[in-house]
């Protein structure tokens, strides 16, 4: 079992890589201003975000207002992580039972 571990993971990785490379073929070129990603939704952010949110920084505007629920989730993620770490690492001292 141990012996096969590396070849198997290598094969998986190569397979995944081939799949990724296969996908590259139809990808828009790097920095193409007319790629779908740059055409469909984002222009509106650039033109109207500042007017509607009074923020010249569009990233902030989108982060804090258009997609504010993602940001709320993001803060929840950080909160979750911190509580998880506390939960796991904090030692509770019980009376009469000190385990150090």
């Amino acid at each position, binding site marked *: 079992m141990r012996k096969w*571990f590396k070849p198997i993971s290598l094969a998986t990785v190569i397979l995944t890589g081939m799949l990724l490379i296969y996908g590259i073929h139809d990808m828009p070129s*790097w920095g193409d201003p007319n790629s779908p990603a740059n055409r469909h939704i984002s222009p509106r952010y650039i033109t109207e975000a500042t007017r509607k949110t009074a923020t010249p920084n569009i*990233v902030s505007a989108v982060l804090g207002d258009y997609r504010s629920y993602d940001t709320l989730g*993001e803060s929840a993620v950080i909160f979750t992580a911190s509580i998880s770490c506390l939960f*796991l690492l904090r030692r509770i001292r019980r009376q009469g039972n000190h385990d150090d």
Partner: protein
Amino acid sequence: MTEYILAKYNFWIYVVLMMIGLYAMMGKRNLVKKLIGMNIFQTSIILLFVSAGVKKGGATVPILRHSDYGPEHVEHLIRVADYLNPLPHVLMLTAIVVSIATTGVALATLILIYKRYNTLEEDEIMAIRKDIRSYKTPRILRSKD
């Protein structure tokens, strides 16, 4: 061919990074190395996203210049091509946070694992766990207290 590769070089970089990360996560037997692999893996995806927002031809960071912003500006004059696509940046800000959070929790579990088995090599941990399950004294024993 070279042009073809160069035109999408961002993807090639991300594919290579991703494969390195993936291999480290699956093939390495040291838990910290796996964790590092995980970080590389996540970074490669961040790279992919951010590169999707790039616009060639003089586009700059998506912070409006003063000429485009202010009481006297005229909205239709804002040229979309002047600014990078802001959305991938927004998404990746969140993704970075997620990646950090995951790393944090993973490190916390690593601390637990180290405390319990006094090693971070997966093979050794497996051996110890096998001994524990069969009620033997663990091979690599360090009396805790």
